[in-house]
């Protein structure tokens, strides 16, 4: 069915289907995905956003998407192709599409571009991201409370601020919940490679880790955790098929409201280049159900933490916090500003290992 959407989109583009009966051309919405729509995680959720756009606007929109587009030069080709097919707005949904998006946007000033998780904007390029780190804080708390070996592991993708924020947020809250906790980080240098993700999870587990957090897109680490009998968290998507164990909770990216709002803005002619960074409060980040494998008191604490973050009464990065080298970062009660968070390139005190450059 999904394939058909793509085919229909391509055919419509090549055949130049006539405009709708009321004389309005449908708004053409394009998506560039870094993984397959069946990854069960990151790309899956973006695709849910696409489906929500279709559902909401019906035949007033036409959607196209391309899966598994490599980050870097090849993505420019994919975007250019989409723009040439007459897309009015293109969502590029991975950090590595940042420069290609800016380049292609320069060539197509009439096409609107929306780049996820980046920081470079132009007149026709908006950026949007979610404050995943707020969800990471909740996961970190559960991880700290649930670990019996006092070792938690983190499968990291690329050393970019978004990933580093997640590592720090998890560690800070795991440490708060359990002062003895240690965290191992494995950089796999991929967003999507199930075999590698599974190998990384196994390496962590072989080294004594009993809670695995992941910042990669597939469900492979969940499967590895299930086999080894350790705990994991759904990433980007609920991954509920692994509940109640190993997946005890999850971070869900809910892009649908944002995509609908932005497509609406294109229809209304009110689209402007903006920077959106929403968290738990507006619902862009959701915490998936905490399963019964988690003791009731831990669950209550985790939910309280989530609610405190949502209400704004607590900030994920609240001092006193030092950087890894021991230098002071945030004083007691001070909270991190968005600028620092957006460009975060350092670990907080207590995390061992180095961030690769």
């Amino acid at each position, binding site marked *: 069915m999904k*394939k058909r959407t793509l085919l229909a989109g391509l055919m419509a583009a090549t055949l130049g289907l006539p405009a709708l009966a009321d004389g309005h051309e449908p708004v053409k919405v394009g998506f560039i995905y870094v993984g397959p729509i069946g990854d069960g995680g990151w790309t899956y959720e973006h695709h849910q956003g696409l489906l929500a756009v279709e559902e909401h606007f019906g035949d007033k929109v036409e959607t196209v998407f391309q899966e598994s587009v490599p980050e870097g030069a090849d993505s420019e080709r994919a975007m250019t192709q989409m723009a040439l097919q007459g897309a009015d707005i293109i969502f590029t949904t991975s950090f590595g599409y940042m420069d290609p998006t800016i380049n292609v946007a320069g060539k197509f000033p009439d096409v609107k571009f929306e780049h996820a998780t980046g920081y470079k904007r132009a007149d026709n390029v908006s950026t949007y991201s979610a404050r995943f780190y707020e969800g990471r804080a909740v996961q970190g708390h559960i991880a700290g409370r649930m670990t019996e070996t006092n070792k938690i592991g983190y499968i990291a993708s690329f050393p970019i601020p978004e990933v580093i924020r997640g590592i720090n947020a998890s560690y800070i809250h795991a440490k708060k919940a359990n002062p003895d906790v240690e965290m191992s980080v494995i950089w796999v240098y991929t967003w999507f490679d199930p075999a590698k993700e599974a190998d990384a999870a196994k390496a962590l587990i072989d080294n004594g880790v009993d809670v695995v957090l992941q910042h990669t897109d597939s469900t492979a680490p969940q499967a590895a955790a299930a086999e080894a009998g350790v705990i994991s968290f759904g990433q980007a998507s609920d991954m509920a098929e692994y509940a109640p164990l190993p997946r005890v909770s999850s971070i869900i990216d809910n892009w649908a409201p944002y995509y609908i709002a932005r497509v609406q803005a294109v229809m209304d002619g009110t689209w402007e280049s903006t920077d959106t960074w929403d968290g738990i409060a507006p619902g862009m980040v959701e915490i998936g159900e905490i399963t019964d494998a988690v003791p009731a008191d831990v669950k209550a604490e985790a939910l309280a933490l989530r609610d405190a973050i949502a209400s704004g009464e607590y900030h994920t990065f609240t001092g006193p916090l030092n950087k890894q080298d021991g230098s002071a970062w945030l004083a007691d009660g001070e909270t991190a500003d968005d600028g620092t968070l957006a460009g975060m390139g350092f670990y907080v005190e207590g995390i061992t290992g180095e961030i690769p450059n």
Partner: protein
Amino acid sequence: MDFGSINPVLLIASLMVASTPILLAALGELVVEKSGVLNLGVEGMMIVGAVTGFIVAVETGSPALGFLAASCGAVILAMIFGVLTQLLLSNQVATGLGLTLFGLGVSALMGQGYVGVRPPASPKLDIFGLNELPVVGPILFNQHGVVYLSLALVIGIWWYLRATRSGLILRAVGESHEAAHALGYSVVGTRFAAIAFGGACAGLGGGFLSLVVVPTWVDGMTAGQGWIALAIVVFASWRSARALIGAYLFGGLTVLQFNLQAAGIAIPVELLSMSPYLITILVLVIISSDKRRAAASAPASLGRSFHASG
């Protein structure tokens, strides 16, 4: 050097598991190339094997049937390649690339209802309690049957190509299909058999990936492993024992570097991450530095179409 929390026994055991899909695919492709056919569709056959194996294992509850289906599914795909390249004489490179694209697409279609489903556990072999032995137990006697099968294939293929009559015919077809044809051997028949075998191996590797290594079905889950298998065939200069070394080296370095990271060993991550690729390239350069030998090891008719008319 302190290896911290790394357990070398577990490390070796898990590197064998991680390397097996690549090893199987490489062994199959090795035989295909020895017969003079270049099938670049390994990635596509692997992923089709991964999804058919997964579906059948889930539906029947039997991993063994799953592995069988994985092989069969990929053989069907390989036969398409065989018909196109051997009977219709299409270009092997283009057809192989097409096979990969087709395999990725068709597997995503077939696997739609199976994302996130858990497969039945594939039991490890327990040989008379030998897996209780220290050190050698977990490495040699506590693996999945397919791991043993892949090792048996290494020896089997070596023996087959070297010591059997039909192995000699297969090599003759790969070296000079005209000469083999003139001697009365069926070039197309031999190549069909080799392509089917290559498909079966790649499919089994894919099935092992989705049923044991990961174990789950995710779209596009081979993520380039088929291409690495192709590179390993060249790396191995078309010898099965070297394919074993190549696959274990590549898989081993990947697992090792993850373990080093997990144990917090202070080696730059960038260096670790690129090490499998770096060392593979390095060995390729060393192997091919002796031009005469490198040229001699590649089957002379590799990638060339054959038609009896000449």
